[in-house]
Structure formats: C-alpha cells, structure tokens
C-alpha cells in the first residue's frame, strides 16, 4: 500500500470513539499528541487522561486495531506524560457533543455552566467524583435531574 498521509491518519483516529464516552473521538479528547512517520514506521504519541484510568489500555488496543484495519503494518505507540493532559485540549466539537450527550463540558471555573438537559444555571455539586475518573456528579435544582460534569484539570 502507499503510505497514508499524516492528515489521513488524524482523520482515521478522529473516527475512533473513546471507550467510556463514545460520543467523543480520541482526537476530540485531546489525548493523541502526535502522528508522524519515522521511515516506514507510523508513530502515534498518546498521553493518558488520568494516570490510573483503566481505559488507557483499551484505547491503545483501539488505536492499533483501527490503524491495522486501514493497512498500517508498522506501528509504534508512544506514551508521553509531559505536558500533562488538560481538559483545555478537548475539541470544540467534543465539547458540543458532550453536552448533547448529557455531560456538562469542563469550564475553567471548575463548575458546569448550565444543566445539559434544561439549561438552568441553578446547580449543586453532589460529589467531586463520578462514574469515571474524569467526571464529577452534579444536580440541577430546576429540573432536579442529576448529571455528570467533565472535571476540569
């Protein structure tokens, strides 16, 4: 096969869903830090969201499966810790999809801007942690529904 361009690989990776929040792609999540060719080997650099996030292993498998399915034969997955992942790297598309999915996107203030269901700004925090390391639990005081907030780090 001819060598796919780096832009092409980024597009492929943008079609790989995050295993825990499937409305986000790995590219939306901001964990793909670099794609480059080193001679005939494709190097993909990935940074973990949280150091103990159990999805990290699955994510590496998914990247490998997606690229192998496209015919990439020599692949090297590199782990990069620094600079540490930040929610600033979430894409605009990703933020919008999160909200549509019912998860309030991260805000610099550390608190969600509004209820992802009814848009109310009357909110209360239930717990600093949620069903995955990257989320916290909040409740809307208007529609009374609990919802998750993507933690800002």
């Amino acid at each position, binding site marked *: 096969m001819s060598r796919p361009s780096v832009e092409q690989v980024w597009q492929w990776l943008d079609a790989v869903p995050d295993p825990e929040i499937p409305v986000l792609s790995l590219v939306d999540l901001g964990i793909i830090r670099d794609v480059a060719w080193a001679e005939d080997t494709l190097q993909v650099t990935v940074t973990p969201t*949280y150091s*103990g996030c159990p999805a990290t292993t699955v994510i590496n498998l998914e990247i490998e499966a997606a690229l192998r399915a496209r015919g990439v034969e020599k692949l090297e997955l590199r782990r990069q810790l*620094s600079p*540490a992942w930040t929610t600033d790297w979430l894409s605009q598309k990703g933020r919008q999809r999160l909200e549509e999915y019912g998860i309030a996107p991260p805000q610099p203030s550390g608190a969600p801007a509004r209820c992802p269901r009814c848009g109310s700004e009357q909110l209360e925090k239930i717990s600093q*942690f*949620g*069903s995955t390391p990257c989320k916290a*639990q909040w409740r809307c005081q208007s529609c009374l529904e609990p919802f998750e907030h993507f933690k800002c780090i």
Partner: protein
Amino acid sequence: MTREEALFQFLLRMGDNTLVLGQRVSEWCGHAPVLEEDIALANTALDLIGQTQMWLNLAGEVEGKGRDADKLAFLRDVWDFRNLLLVELPNGDFGRTMMRQFLFDAWQSVLLGRLTNSAEPRVAEIAEKAGKEVAYHVERSSGTVVGLGDGTEESHARMQAALDYLWPYVGEMFASDAVDEEMARAGIAPDPAGLREEYDALVGRVLGEATLSIPEGGFFHKGGKDGARHTEHLGHMLTEMQWLQRAYPGASW
C-alpha cells in the same frame, strides 16, 4: 550509596506510599457510608494506583534488574517496602480514613509541586501528571475534614480522635536520611524538612476551619520510609494484596 541507588530508594518511597494508600482506600469499595463517597474513594484509590505504576516502573528502570511495577508491588516482602507508616494504618472509621487522606494529600501536594522542578526529568514529568490529580484530592479531603470537623458533636469528636491518633505519624514525612540527602544534593528532590512550613500552613488553615486542635508534643513514629520497622498492619495488608501472586506465581491475564 551511589546516586542511582538513592534514586531507586526514593522512587520506591514515592511508589510505595501511593500503592499502600491506594490499596487501603480501595478496601472501602462497597462499604462507604453513602454511594457518592464510595465512588469518590474508589476513584481516589484508582488515581493512587495509577501513580504507583509510574513511580514503580521508573524505580524498576533505574534499578535495571528487569523488575517492573507489578513485580515490585507483588513480589517484595514487608521489610522491603518504603512507605510512610501513616499510609499502612488500618482505615478505622470513615472519619479517620478521610483525616489520613487529608494529612497525606496535603503533604503530597506540597512535595509534587517541588518535584516538578526536579533535575531528573522523568521524576518531574510524573510529578506534573500526579500533581493535577492530587490537587483534586486535597480539595476533596480538606472539604470533608472541614465538613465533619465543624459538623455535629459526634462527627467533631470522631475527627478530633482521628487527628489525635494520626498526628504522631505525620513527623516521618519530614525526617531526612542519607537517601534524602543524596536526592537533595543531586537536585532531584527537596530536603523533606524544607516542606514543613508550607505543610503546616496548609494543614493549620484547614484544621482551624474544621475547629480541630493539633495535638501538642513533637514525638513521632518512624521506620516506614527506611523499612526499619513497619507496623504489624502492613504484613497483614500484603497477605491480601499479594495473595494471588503468592499462590500462583507469575499468573497473568
């Protein structure tokens, strides 16, 4: 002691602290007083175990004998552990668990802040990663300590009892030995004693807000970070944590 040997010991201390505390905190999974706290404790434990993987993998790399984080975690016996005594103490009630978490988080947040400037880049990058998680931990544990300390008569009494019990284990964080001296000389880690002022300011502010009094007297227990004298509790904890690898050596999935 060569610099590499000291670095290995230092990394074991970092990784064993998060490993032992992570294991302790995970004992709450399914037992916490309310669901949200249960989830929060499990997530905290998960962060700590994740940090352990980074510290102990680097320790194994520095040692150069083919040991990785798993081998170091599961195939060492109690006298080879280098964690602070504080983190191996049994959980006690929820209040004591949260007080221990706060006393540890406060120290870790101050230490990791300094380690981001380490002369050893592999230490600096782990500190940067872990520091973000720990900033979140200390926010939560300090909030809980204030909520329970300045809470009901019952919760206040339990938090004061927890502080009285745990405070004599805080001093070990700031005691220096040959490993620390070598790390400070190399610019890899700060002299532990130099963290005390910032720690006392942070802890003093939160405990003051929690209406709790720090016990008087400078006595402290030691023997964890150099492995000289662990409490009886660590061995019991390890028998559970290491059971699978002891019963079925090399088992994997």
